[in-house]
């Protein structure tokens, strides 16, 4: 038995054969429950041997981005489907992405397309306020702006995920650009003064709200929607819709082709398929209730989640945001500790 050890070791290399047997590899940061069935279907349609690698929530959407950085000298990934945008732009800035102008992306709004065609956005989540309707039954009392975080009226009763990673980091970094340094600094100071609950993730904030520990919190539409589907007493507010308000931030999924990744030809076909209008419709209908960026596509059934064009969007600079993620995260660490 022990004599066969070397044989076993040799066989180990063969264990990897399947993964490298041709076909593109996709790294997916979107929840596996939503993305896998869609990708399985696409792979069957395109008749490609698609290897899927899904992210871990433990990595807060950046696990695969880190992996792409680690694997830079020998890319294993052909297509990267990120569930947000800023880290994809970081990869573009780091030179890891190959340009590809997908014909399917022609009708995606220009704000969500890279002028150099290294990435394309689609199907977005909005940064919204999730409200516990048992604690706040009167709609007129609901919060309506990021500024409510620092309103003494909500002292100790609202929360937000710590903006050290994930969509919350993207959100706060973009706020810094939109509000300016001074207002952003006051916002951070106000979070402390107003005893805002700084939780570990968007999931934690929704949990706290649905269980009545908090009256409301900032989160993503998908987290809100799942809680709503499960019958918890929650509602969704698109913030800053008042005249002159900064608007609600949309963070789209993004897809990109990795430079020198395997099977570039099929990678492009796959990107075309992912960027098709049908994908946005599928993701809108799924539990994650993603908002289509293009007009004319049926959005989520939940009336609380509004369609593009029916609300004021926050205008933010993705390149600036991506380039300043590290600075904002570091500053947060300095102010609040990890």
């Amino acid at each position, binding site marked *: 038995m022990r004599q066969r050890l070397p044989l076993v070791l040799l066989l180990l290399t063969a264990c990897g054969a399947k993964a490298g047997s041709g076909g593109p590899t996709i790294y997916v940061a979107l929840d596996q429950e939503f993305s896998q069935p869609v990708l399985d279907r696409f792979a069957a349609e395109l008749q490609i041997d698609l290897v899927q690698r899904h992210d871990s929530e433990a990595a807060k959407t950046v696990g695969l981005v880190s992996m792409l950085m*680690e694997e830079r000298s020998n890319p294993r990934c052909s297509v990267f489907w990120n569930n947000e945008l800023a880290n994809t732009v*970081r990869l573009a800035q780091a030179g890891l992405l190959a340009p590809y102008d997908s014909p399917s992306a022609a009708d995606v709004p220009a704000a969500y397309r890279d002028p150099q065609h290294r990435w394309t956005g689609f199907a977005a989540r909005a940064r919204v306020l999730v409200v516990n309707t048992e604690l706040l039954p009167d709609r007129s009392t609901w919060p309506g702006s990021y500024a409510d975080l620092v309103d003494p009226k909500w002292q100790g009763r609202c929360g937000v995920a710590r903006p050290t990673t994930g969509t919350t980091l993207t959100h706060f970094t973009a706020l810094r650009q939109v509000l300016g340094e001074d207002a952003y600094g006051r916002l951070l100071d106000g979070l402390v003064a107003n005893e805002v609950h700084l939780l570990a993730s968007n999931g934690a904030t929704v949990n706290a709200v649905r269980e009545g520990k908090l009256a409301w919190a900032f989160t993503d539409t998908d987290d809100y929607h799942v809680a709503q589907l499960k019958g918890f007493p929650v509602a969704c507010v698109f913030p800053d819709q008042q005249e002159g308000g900064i608007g609600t931030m949309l963070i789209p999924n993004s897809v990109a082709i990795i430079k020198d990744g395997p099977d570039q030809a099929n990678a492009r076909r796959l990107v075309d398929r992912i960027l098709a209008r049908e994908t946005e419709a599928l993701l809108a209908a799924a539990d994650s209730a993603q908002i289509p960026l293009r007009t004319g596509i049926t959005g989520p059934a939940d009336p609380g989640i509004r369609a593009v064009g029916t609300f004021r969007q926050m205008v933010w600079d993705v390149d600036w945001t991506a380039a300043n993620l*590290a600075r904002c995260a570091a500053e947060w660490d300095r102010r609040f500790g990890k």
Partner: protein
Amino acid sequence: MSRLARIASPSRLPLLAALAFLAAFVLLPLGGLAAATVFGPDGFTLEAWRALAEDQNALTQLSASLQLGLAATTVSLLLGGLHAWVTIGRDLPGGAWLGPLGIAPLVVPPIFVAMGFADLASVSGFWPCALLLGVAHAPFVAVLAARGLRSVDGRAYEAAWLLRGRPRAERWLLRAIAPELLAGCLLAFLFTLADHGVPEFLTVKGKTWHTYAEGLFSRWSRRAVGTTFAELQSPITAALPFVAGLGCLLWAALRLRAAAPDRGVVRPLPLRPLGAWRWPALLAPAVYLAAGIGLPVFVLVRWVLGSAQRLEPMSLHYAQQSFHKAMDQGLPDLLHSLWLALGVAVFVVLLALPLARASARRWPVLDLLCALPAAIPAILLGIALVRSFHDEALLRRLGGDFYAGWGFALCGYAARFLPFAALTLSAQVRRQSIAAEEAGALVRRSPVTRALRLHLPPLLPATWTAGVLVFVLALRELDLAVVLPAANATAVRRLANAVHFQHEDWSGVIALLLLSLAVLLPLLPSLLAGRRLASLS
């Protein structure tokens, strides 16, 4: 026979292969990390160390980890130690059954214990977190303490009893099993410190402080947005003294256990009556087993029945739906977990046998090398493996994309769990008669025949124990599953995600099935051959 020919003789191939594995999957990755820290552009400078020493975050995390480790270990000692103390050699009602069950909570992944606690109460504070980690790692203390109690010479206890009375004899007994208790505590301490998955899960539930293992992972994942080499290397720099300390601790723990002599042939302890405590003492195993198994299983069952939603009351009908969803979503991951854990168990045992013999008979330093991976936060070992193998051209030429395949996951897991098998087996080899092996050397048989007929059979019980331990640990491994590509498709990783995304219903089914698998293998000998579960300890 030339020296080279002797070294490469067929009888040495298993050892050479195991050493090659150790070099490739333990020394190379960890050495690579250390080298990058020492020789990189912003590497091993006094400034870097000074900056690290002044990094309040790192120090806070380190301090939090150590405090958590100590607190959780205390809980493990109280729960596990007390369980063994009142069930082994006592007249506790049902003690014969309850004693061997001390190992049972080991089959419950700590993340499930965390889920169970978090579902019923707030675990955002320090002590709740220490409590659940202590519960999750208490089996190490329970099992080793039970082993200690079973191997104490009953006559020595009786001598102490006759001379100094029962209370003094009990104190003597406690001292006699101190090495095993200490070893169990050190293992619990190490596992607590190295655990990334549970503290990270608890952050979702509202924990607001962070451990060292979390900090390592966070810094690594931040490289996507951070750019400087120093930022990249700082967790590794920070890890080095920590890892060295943990390595020594683990080595000490397992050597302590090995040093406790095998007294299996002596008279067992006499029955030590609990007196008036006979029935109240039942509380100890009841609390231990309830916290370690009962509570997690209870919560999982509730999830399956629909406790994590408000649309309809909990029902069997909802459980049916949960089951269908689980089959649809998680069955492949569950099967991957099963095959991976089985493969890892077999592979690790095959590697550990020659290493154990070599370390017990020739090179004790091998024990220390084998102990290294278990002393490192698994997340760091995973990162080290990724760095070393993602660009391995030779393996790529040999047989496809090793890095992306199950082979790499198998090797990564094997590296992580090799210490437990190698050190368990080397302790067992040390207990075997050298003279009996020498008697075999005089027999004109091939080395393979000698290995199979003489050396292996006395090790089979320990081999089975090591294999089961590795199987269970591999089945519940979360940290490596996050980092190693193929291992992404395992049930535990999927479960951790599913709970984040509020899919408690079907993930509860997967978790229960995973638990059943973890229980099945250890129970197999009992089911097939009537072997006692106690033999596992």
